[in-house]
């Protein structure tokens, strides 16, 4: 038989699952199909990557609202959406109490067996405006990558250069009155340097691109990563404003993310320079350290 849930889920995950802000019913399910069981296994897997593989450090976690809705807006990188996974892990392992965050998955993934099932069971729903609005009205945290697949598939030579931001996320934030929390994910570009897109292979599996790094296998390297959360940004409006106004708001968010990226890359350089020493010293009290660290932006 399959191993028992408790045997495959780490103790830290089990303890944090109990404090998670999701209304699980007697089947361990929430109304969106998030399953406590699946979330436990998923988080145990992410834990390995978050704590040991990418050795992620989170800054500015005090900017995440303790309750109620929030829209996390991030740069996107790394060929495969490892950044999304690490943001989810960051709010689960480094935030107290932990919070669940819903990502908006590319629609093509819904037709993939097993993968789509897992995405749905851990709260990563297809990227539809209806889902975003409903989740935010329900007081959930939402994670969006306005660059979409454009950002994910960007080549190493374009690293940390933000590609075009859509305006859909801002209209939804305005419509639902949700604060926008800009963030920068640093290290993803180096961990998974895409030098080439295998177009035929992408077409074969129905994906928008297939990233190829210099070492061919599309899997990220174990390099250190950081997440920098910025101050929540509040925008007033209804979501029905003309494009130029909404684009103005989007530019504000984009410029803050650019600042966070610039600042984050400087810290990243320092960390890489003294990588070994640094990592050993803060392994034990990672979460404390990240919460106490200074705010990531000043505006």
């Amino acid at each position: 038989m399959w191993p028992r849930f408790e045997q495959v889920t780490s103790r830290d995950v089990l303890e944090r699952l109990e404090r998670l802000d999701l209304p699980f019913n007697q089947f361990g399910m929430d109304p969106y199909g998030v399953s406590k069981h699946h979330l436990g296994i998923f988080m145990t897997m992410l834990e390995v990557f978050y704590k040991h593989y990418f050795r992620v450090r989170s800054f500015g976690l005090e900017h995440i609202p303790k309750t109620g809705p929030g829209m996390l807006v991030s740069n996107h990188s790394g060929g495969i959406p490892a950044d999304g996974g690490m943001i989810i892990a960051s709010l689960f392992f480094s935030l107290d109490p932990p919070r669940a965050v819903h990502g908006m998955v590319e629609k093509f993934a819904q037709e993939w067996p097993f993968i789509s099932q897992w995405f749905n069971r851990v709260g990563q729903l297809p990227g539809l405006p209806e889902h975003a609005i409903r989740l935010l009205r329900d007081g959930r945290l939402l994670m969006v990558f306005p660059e979409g697949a454009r950002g994910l598939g960007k080549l190493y030579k374009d690293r940390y250069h933000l590609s075009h931001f859509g305006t859909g996320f801002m209209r939804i934030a305005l419509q639902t009155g949700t604060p926008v929390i800009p963030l920068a994910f640093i290290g993803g570009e180096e961990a998974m340097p895409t030098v080439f897109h295998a177009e035929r292979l992408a077409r074969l599996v129905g994906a928008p691109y297939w990233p190829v790094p210099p070492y061919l296998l599309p899997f990220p390297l174990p390099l250190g990563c950081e997440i920098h959360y910025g101050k929540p940004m509040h925008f007033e409006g209804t979501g029905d404003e003309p494009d130029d106004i909404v684009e103005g708001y989007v530019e504000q968010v984009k410029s803050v993310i650019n600042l966070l990226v610039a600042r984050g890359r400087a810290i990243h350089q320092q960390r890489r320079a003294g990588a070994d020493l640094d990592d050993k010293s803060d392994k034990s009290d990672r979460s404390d350290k990240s919460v106490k660290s200074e705010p990531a932006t000043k505006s």
Partner: protein
Amino acid sequence: MKILITGINGSHARMVALRLLAQGHEILGIDRRPWPDAPPNIHVFQTDVRKRPAADVFRLHRPDVVIHMATITHYSARAEERLRINLHGTRLVLDHCHEYGVKQVVFVGRHTIYGAAPDAPLYRTEDEPPLAVTTFPELADLVAADLYAGSALWRWPELKTAVLRLVYILGPARRGTLANFLEGKRAPMILGFDPLYHFMHDEDAVEAIIRTVDHQLTGVFNVAGPPPVPLSVLTRGTGRQAIPIPEPLFRYTVGRFGLPFLPPGAAMHIKHPIVVDNTAFRNATGFEYQYDAHEIMRGFRDG
């Protein structure tokens, strides 16, 4: 009030009839099938809703309220028959309602008309389009009937029309689409997919229909019970063995190996969820479900 129920011999229609009778209403029924042990004060006319004697029931007895429950699914009839009963039957019943001064009509429809699709939102509100017309062609007649019933809202504003879209009904009555699906010991799943299933208890469904009458609802409403559960939980909870089938093999396995017979379109409904938002109905009627998913599944298993 004088209430006419079409398709009164369906097990849920009977439950509605008995509840309304107990409330002191006068109950009439139309059905092709006989109801031999019907209570003496329920008058059942054994005829087809599309036939002349059915029109006579409207003309001679002048019901105040009509509850239209004479619709069928692919489990009980072939395509032409379904189209005749579901679409043409609904059309005639609504025409009679208009012509013979019925004050209120309730069309009891299904949530499956929304159709399952990979790019559809998880929670469907009443304004979502009915995708089933393409994703599950065998439901096209029910989609048409639902939309046709809804058209009464603008064609005859004086007729209070309610179109209900009920999630699957499950429970000790063991009747309905989902009950048919789970009839055997084995139930098929598509390998690698485990969609959410939305269902409600027999009693809750009956209660919802009665509240629609009591509140004289006008409009289109989704009706649901407890939050949805994955198909794997549903099969386990009802004591069925889930058989995961790779999608390309699905069409060759239905109706064989102890699996239920399903039309090809059903694969989509086993692969992707159909879940509805029933906020509008709850706000309009104060309806709250009494049976949770566990009780429903146990009720079906032991029923």
